[in-house]
């Protein structure tokens, strides 16, 4: 956690950043729901009313996060637009 943000790197080279102050009043916790719906290692879980990581940063970067992008997209529609995923591509302005 850093400056009120929950941030972690993903395997393909990119970052998931969650602005936690926006999550305080979020009733849906859509990011957690979609993460758990993936049937995978369940990267996100709720801890004291906020999204938290269930795995170490190393485990997530090793492939724990399946990069479905669901947390960002569902948060945008049903949450508080708190999730931003950055996926750089060297050589291309992204």
């Amino acid at each position: 956690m850093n400056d009120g943000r929950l941030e972690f790197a993903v395997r393909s080279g990119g970052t998931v950043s969650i602005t936690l102050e926006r999550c305080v009043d979020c009733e849906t916790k859509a990011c957690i729901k979609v993460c758990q719906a993936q049937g995978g290692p369940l990267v996100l879980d709720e801890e004291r009313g906020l999204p938290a990581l269930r795995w170490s940063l190393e485990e997530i970067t090793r492939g724990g996060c399946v990069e479905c992008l669901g947390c960002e997209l569902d948060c945008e529609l049903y949450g508080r637009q708190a999730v931003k995923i950055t996926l750089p591509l060297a050589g291309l302005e992204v």
Partner: protein
Amino acid sequence: MTRLLEHQGKELLRRFKIPTPEGRIVGSLEEAHEAARQIGYPLLVKAQVYTGKRGKSGGVRPAENEAELETAVREMLSTPIRGLLVESLLIEQLIPLRRELYVAVTADPSLRQPVLIFCANGGVDIEETFHDRPETVLRLPVDILRGVYLYDALNLLRDAPELSSRDRLEVAQVLCRLYELYRACDAKLAEINPLALTDNGPVALDARIDIDGDALGRHPELSLALAEEAGERHPTRLEQIAATIDQGDHRGTVHFVQIDPDLSYARQHQKVPIGFDCVGAGVSLTMMDELVPLGFYPVNFCDSSGNPVASKLYRITRVIFSQPGIAGYVFVSCVSSQQLDNTARGIIKAFKELFPQTGGQPDIPTVLAFRGAWDEEAIRLLADHGISAGRWVRVLGREATEQEVAETFQALHSAWVAERGEAA
């Protein structure tokens, strides 16, 4: 597969102690003069392009003096060879020779083994020799666990006609070193044609080395750009960018090749250039078969299959839409077990960033056909995010055939052109 240019191949040969003529790579007349001063006349000027039969196409020319060098360099740098622009030339010492041979190491799929190949009639028209006089081509399958010993190569050359004992020994050494290169570099083909017999021993006058594209990650020392196999040309900038998406991440694949990078084919044949992505190479081909007769030309091939993570779909969609001049986009999945909701998420994120002013609705005709596992979820996501409601977007489901996808795209494109008029 990654094919090396001649000068790159010769650099590898030298690393494996196979002699080559002294040479310099140049890109201008000034550099050619400097190379000539260092090497001395007579010289050969050789176009560095990915094509065979350069000699017959004006891509290899002798230069006895400065005037001939200037003429050769000027003409070769300004004239395409078999349609390929010449960006660099190899200025090389002209070697006096007694005889030209052919040697190669390649994989024989029928034997599932590498095979050493020797032919006493090397040089131009080797393909014809292989076809018309197969009895002159000597082959030796190699057990990769055992490797090649000098006496194996000597045995292969035992039946080679008109080779002296000394020649036979020296050519056998070249064969062993060429096999060593083939294995060490994960090559698919290591070919020297011709291998010249000179008074100072054998010299490789040309080199064709093809590296297994899937093994490039193991060979940073080769400094080769990763890219899908794109025929006999340099990989484009976008192909090189796309190739990095799969690098070190084997969670599904995105294979991207630009078929018509500058849209020249589409323009020449009065086709509409479009971006293209399919789940499965087979459905790509059938979709092209449907689209091309209707007047559309996919300027890229893309197979995003093997259940790639959504981030790969996001990145490759950005790459596809980076192609300038495309007037439409078609995405089609084959009926497979690929988790299409993830595929859809990648596309949705890309669209939202590409078309922020419309909330992710493309402003060019776009048809997306989701057929397979989680297809209903994929279609729902596109609706929920407002993409499907786009004026120039159509989303189809599992019931749609390739023909219907193409016809839907055609109708959409016609309406788009009618509204945009000349601007389209």
